């Protein structure tokens, strides 16, 4: 019998399968969690439009998105910045601050050839449910156009006929 070939201390194989499984699980878990925390698209039913241009954003690029569900709250990254149910003189402040912050992070361009004043030159995407009263969207627009914000480019999120057919 050749015992040297079966040395219990040197012949031990480690089974890597469970470790790889666990590592993959952890990677996927953290991927999903990160995605959830950064999710800035609320679950809304968007109105249908034939002339819509497809929205294919770069996932790594920041962009300002304001979600407005059917009952009017204004949400950015799962946080409500304006609630129509809340009354009081300061109820617009959070939204205004958010829009000022959006404007600050946008690329700037001169107002016109004759006026060198810099204004934000990127669009604000408004994602409103198809049944959202338009006065809430008008309110968001009015806040965006405020002299302290000066966002003038807007995009309204819509669903395209292809999407409807796919459903």
């Amino acid at each position: 019998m050749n015992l040297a070939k079966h040395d219990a201390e040197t012949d031990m194989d480690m089974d890597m399968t469970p470790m790889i499984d666990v590592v993959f699980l952890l990677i996927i878990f953290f991927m999903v969690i990160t995605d959830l925390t950064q999710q800035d698209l609320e679950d809304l039913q968007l109105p249908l439009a034939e002339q819509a241009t497809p929205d294919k954003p770069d996932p790594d690029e920041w962009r300002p998105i304001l979600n407005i569900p059917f009952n009017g709250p204004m949400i950015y990254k799962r946080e409500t910045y304006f609630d129509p149910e809340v009354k009081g003189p300061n109820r617009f402040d959070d939204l205004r601050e958010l829009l000022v912050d959006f404007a600050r992070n946008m690329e700037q361009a001169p107002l016109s050839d004759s006026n060198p004043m810099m204004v934000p030159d990127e669009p604000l995407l408004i994602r409103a449910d198809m049944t959202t009263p338009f006065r809430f969207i008008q309110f968001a627009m009015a806040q965006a156009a405020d002299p302290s914000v000066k966002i003038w480019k807007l995009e309204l999120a819509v669903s395209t006929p292809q999407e409807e057919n796919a459903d």
Partner: protein
Amino acid sequence: MAQKGILAKIADEKHELEMTPMIDVTFLLLIFFMCTLKFKVLEGKLGAYLPKDVGAQSTPQEEIEKFKIQLRVLNEGTKMRFSKEAEKLVPVSEAQLEDGFRFEYGDDRRIEYTMGSYATTDLEEVRKRLSQVQKAAIAAGEDSARVEIDPRERTINRDVVRVLDVVIGEDIREINFSGSFEK
């Protein structure tokens, strides 16, 4: 004897396929595709502009002539919600409305589009008028006609997007909105 014993042992060993890693991998793939499918959202967007010079100009601007479309709700329509059981839209009860159910309006919703002295409930008429306006603007040497959408009380996002869709369909790029939140 000892040699034979080992061979017999090997021959007697059961060769079973280890299923655990396969199940692990299957679950992993299942979870992965469930997650990625859920987050894949393809949407569209319509562009519009707000007055660019608000608060920036100290001198009054010359009023630019705009083609104004006013939206008024003639009939709000029946409030409906999607029923999973019936697989269609069904009217919402008062109790469900009080509970904050999301609803949409039925086909009986009517919107009146007023353009100057002309009013219609037919979007096709709006399209025809816009086409004329755009042609006139181009004939006058402009890039595009200027349109102002004025949604009045009780209009919803869908009503406005329908008009905006028609306006953009006529290749009109100068679109503004008017109105106020508190009306």
